[in-house]
Each structure stands twice: as C-alpha cells, then as structure tokens.
C-alpha cells in the first residue's frame, strides 16, 4: 500500500466503527481509497459491506438507530464532522443501488431532475445526452426519452441510474452490488462502463462475484466477521486486486477468494 500517496487519496477512513444501536456492524476500518481507481469491497454476506459503503455518503443517516465513530475523510474533511451537510456529501458522492430504482418519471426527467435540483446552469439536452452516452445507454433510448423509465429492461434501468448519477458530476460513485440483479450481458456492459467511468470518477463497488472483482477493480478490500465472535465485520486485508487474488497475506482471504470458504 506504500504506493498510495496523500494527494491521490479520494477518501480515507480512520478508526471507523459503525453501529446499529449497540451492535457494532463494522469495526475498526482504516483504509485509503485512491482517486480515479475502482476499489472493490468483497466478503461474505452480513459482514458489513453495505453498511460500510453506505457510510461513505451518509445513507445510514436514514436508519434512526445507526451512528458512527471515527472519521471518514474526504479531502481532509470529516464527513461525519459537526458542520457537514449530508445533502452536500451525497451531492459529491453518488450511489448506484443493488436493485435499479429509477424514478417514476420519463427517461429524460430521471436525468434532468438531479441536475435541476442541484442548480445545473448548462444546456439540459446536452447534459442528458452526454450522461446517457456516458452510461452507454444513449443509442438504446434516444428515440424514447419521453417514455417512462419503467418501460426499460432491468439492465437498461440500472444504466439509467448510473447515467443520472454521472449527470450530477459527483467525485465518487458508490455501487452496492450494481449487477447482482442483472443478466450476464447487462453485467458485462456495466463492467465495461466502469472502466470508462474511472477516467473521471473514483468508483467503490461492493460485489459478491469474485471474477467481477478481479476483472474490474484496481484495489480490493476484503471484509470478514471478526474472529472474536462479536459478529462485527472489519476489513482484514486491503491491497491491489492482483495481490489479493494471487498472493493474499491472510489465510482467510485466500480461502474466500479460492472458494474454500464455508
């Protein structure tokens, strides 16, 4: 990890714990995520991947019992600091969810809405086209921009969700198992898209699919429940993806990525 230098860091966690009530779902996470790279978070079900990624744009605020200790730093500012506005955080750190969740509006409005509320002053038609092109969806929908987004297929809907996220030009895009509800071809398209997107954005993706993590990511964080039986998850290994898959340090990582895990 010594090649990660301070200026290239997009987001960094320091001694991060995430609680649901008194239950620490995630404990003691210290990672630095590099700019304009794809970072994958992998690990068994229930180890706190979603909890961690949702902490990055304060999505957990909507779970009343949840709270965070430690720090998540974005350009040196603690996202959970005192004077931080979560709306501003989410504006800078966008998110794509497991199940496509387009708004019940037209395809065009799905993209223009976020731009409008965030005070976009440029040409809206251009923005819509750029964003749809950016999400590799333009050719499929350019003739039905006024149609409801619900008329699209699941894979198209997910790409629309990516398009609407890049339309607001965040710095970081979080993706929580973005392809798990999609067929292999749609999955492939999303993976290709990520390679395109990382030229402009930092991407953090949660995935259950080892091949996918190996294919798309530059860095990988391996999460696991702690051994002490507290059912609390933590990052047990974080390094370049190549290393994780070919020469892991931790025995548990090796077991997991080679499929020997429970």
């Amino acid at each position: 990890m010594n090649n990660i230098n301070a200026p290239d860091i997009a987001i960094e966690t320091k001694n991060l714990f995430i609680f649901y009530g008194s239950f620490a779902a995630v404990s003691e996470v210290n990672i630095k995520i590099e700019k304009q790279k794809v970072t994958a978070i992998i690990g068994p079900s229930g180890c706190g991947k979603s909890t961690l990624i949702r902490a990055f744009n304060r999505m957990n605020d909507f779970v009343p019992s949840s709270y965070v200790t430690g720090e998540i730093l974005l350009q040196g500012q603690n996202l959970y600091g005192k004077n931080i506005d979560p709306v501003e955080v989410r504006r800078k750190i966008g998110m794509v969810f497991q199940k496509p969740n387009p708004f019940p509006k037209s395809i065009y409005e799905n993209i223009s809405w976020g731009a409008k509320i965030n005070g976009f002053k440029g040409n809206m038609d251009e923005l819509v086209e750029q964003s749809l092109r950016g999400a590799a969806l333009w050719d499929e929908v350019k003739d039905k921009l006024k149609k409801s987004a619900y008329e699209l297929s699941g894979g198209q809907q997910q790409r629309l969700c990516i398009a609407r996220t890049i339309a607001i030009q965040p710095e970081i895009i979080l993706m929580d198992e973005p392809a798990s509800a999609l067929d292999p071809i749609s999955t492939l398209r999303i993976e290709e898209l990520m390679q395109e997107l990382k030229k402009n954005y930092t991407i953090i993706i949660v995935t259950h699919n080892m091949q996918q993590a190996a294919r798309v990511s530059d860095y990988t964080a391996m999460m696991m429940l702690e051994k002490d039986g507290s059912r609390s998850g933590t990052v047990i290994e974080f390094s370049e993806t190549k290393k994780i898959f070919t020469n892991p340090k931790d025995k548990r990582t090796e077991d997991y990525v080679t499929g020997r895990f429970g």
Partner: protein
Amino acid sequence: MNPNRDYYPKGEDLHRSLGRRYRSASIWQTLFFSALVIAILSLAALLYNVIDGAFGYVAFEYKNDPTEFSTKPLDALNKQELLDILKANLSSGAFTKLENEKPMDTRSKSVLYTLLLERLIQIDTKETWSMTDSIFRSAKIKAEVAEKYPEAKLEFRSWLTPVFLTTPMSSKAEFAGVRTAILGSLWMVGIALLFALPIGTGAAIYLQEYASKNFLNRIIQTNINNLAGVPSIVYGMLGLAIFVRALEPFTSGRLFGVTDSNGRTILSAGLTMGTLVLPLIIINAQEAIKSVPDSLRQAAFGVGATRWQTVWHHVLPNALPGILTGSILAVSRAIGETAPLIVVGASTFISIDPSGPFSKFTALPIQIFQWTTRAQSEFHSIAASAIIVLLILLLTLNAAAILLRNRVQKKY
C-alpha cells in the same frame, strides 16, 4: 476534465444555493404542519362550539306567579307537597293522563318539580346566551336583561343535567330530555346487531375459510367493499322501500297482532341500520379471522378435525375479540347515523318510552337534527347537550374497542 462540473454551483455558490433550497423547504414544511394545525383547530372549534352552546345564561319569565301555588319557596317543597299542588291545580283529565303514563307517586321529586314548572307556573324563555358570552359579557347581559325584560329572571344554566338524560321529549326546550331518544337508539342498535352480526360473521367465515378464489367469490368481495361506500341515505331509501313499505305487515307488527302502527317502526329502522353496517362487520370480521395464525388451523386439521370443527373450536374463539371490536365500531357508526333514520321515518316527537320493536321511535341523532334546525336558541342549547351525550357515548364505545384491540394485539 469534466466540463460539466463547471455548470454546477461550487464552494460559496453551492452553500448559498443549498441555503435557498433549505429555506423554501422549511416554508413548505411549515405549511404542511399548518394543515395539521388547522385540522386540530377545527376539532377544537367543533368541541368548543358544542360546549359553548350547552351552558350559559337564560332569561325567562314565569307566566304564572309561583306564589299562587305555594307560600313556601319552590325549591323548598318536598315530594308530597309537590304532588298535592299538582293534584290541586291540574285539570283532572290532565292529571289522570299523567297518572296513566306513569303513576305520580312513583315519580321522583325532581320530575314532579319539573312538572310543576312546566304545567303550572309555565316558564317563558326570553333569550339565551352562549357560555363565552355569559362569562365575558356578564355585566352587559345583566344590564340588557334588566332593560329589555324587567320581569325576567336571569340564571346561569347547564342545559346538560341528569334530568335531561332521564326526561322524555317535550315541546318546551327547558323540559325536554333525551330519555326516549337514547332508548330508541339502543333498541335500534340492538336490532341492527342481532341482524347483522350473525350474517356478517357467517359471511366473513365463508369468505376467509371456505371460499375458493373463483369468479363468484371475487364478485362477493368487491361487492362488499363497494357496499361500504354507498351513501347512507341510499340505505335509507332501501329501508323505506323494503322494510317500511314492502314488509309492512311484518315490520308494523300486524302479523303479530299489533294494530296501531305503520311500517315506520323501530324494527324497520334497526333492520335498515343492520343492512348499513353489514359490510363494515364483514370487513372487520375478515380482518380478525385473517389474523388467526395458520399454524392453528393446521394443528387442528392435523388431528383430524373437519373444517367446521376447526373454525368453531379454534378459529372463531381466537378471532372473537377482533370480531367484537369490529362490532363495537359498527355500533358507533350506527349510533351516529342520521340520514337513513330520517328516511325510514323516525318520529321527532315521542314522549313515551319505546315498548318493543313495533313502537314508533326517535333516536339521539334525530333529536339533535330536529333541535338544531329549530329557530329558537334554547333548542340549540339542548341540541348541544344531546351532542355531548352522543359524543361521550361514542367515546366510551371507541375506548372499549381500543382496549379490546390492544388485548388482542398482545396475544400474538
């Protein structure tokens, strides 16, 4: 690298534009909250308006001087003295009539006192004031009365009294009560329940436990939901056409040897109201039956019980509190319904207690309606008092329903 980023507000600009968004959001949020405040204020205004009418000053005159009847002050008279005065001064025909309705010496002192005021001294109400006026403009009211009605007495009165609950109807607001109306309402609700509860529960059992998902059963279900939304006055028309008119020999009691009535009886009203609450009872009973866990049914079937044995011994006992809650809600709906009773012909002036299903009748909401639409303000005061009685009755019923519901919820 990202030309589009330039089109979005940044730094200070972003803060300012976010500030604007938050401000407009908080204005709207305040508006939403005000709507709730308006709703609460409306409820408060309604309750206040009712209470305001039920208490306050009354200016009245005695038509006949009390000293003509008694040398003692009126409120110092005992029961025997009151009886004697009544006997001495009422015409013998009037006295006999009263005696026939209910023997005089079995009547309470306060009833006799009321009779004395009503029949002999004869109160003439000049004007009434609301509670608020009476409290805040007391001096002015007194001056006004002294000037306009020099003979009149001014008295702060609660129109809602124990006597109001126990006296029958009267053409004078001061002496009117809701006894017959309450009894009428109880009779009517009793008949409605007797009619709707077994049918409603049976229908619910059929739909939940027996019905397959075929076309007919879907129609039945949709139909029930729709019936619940039919305006109550339409039920009134149905009652008028069927129970009052077509089934007159039955509902008037002629089949049973009652001769002096037409179809506009308590029985017709009760059946009409039963029809009206039937969909309500079915829907609530269905919910209650639905909430009985399936494991219970499977356990019963597992030991070889037939479907009816399962329903009778396991499902129904467990659904019973829920069904009862639903019935209480149906009762409170029936007690407040007015329009269908008007249509099936509740009488507004009934001074003797209903004696059975074939009696003519009045009901609490009918009295409220009738008194509210009178021009004289003393009738508004007794309407307000009757409303308080009605609301307390409903509140009690609903409290009972909530208690019952909570007990059920604890169980599972």
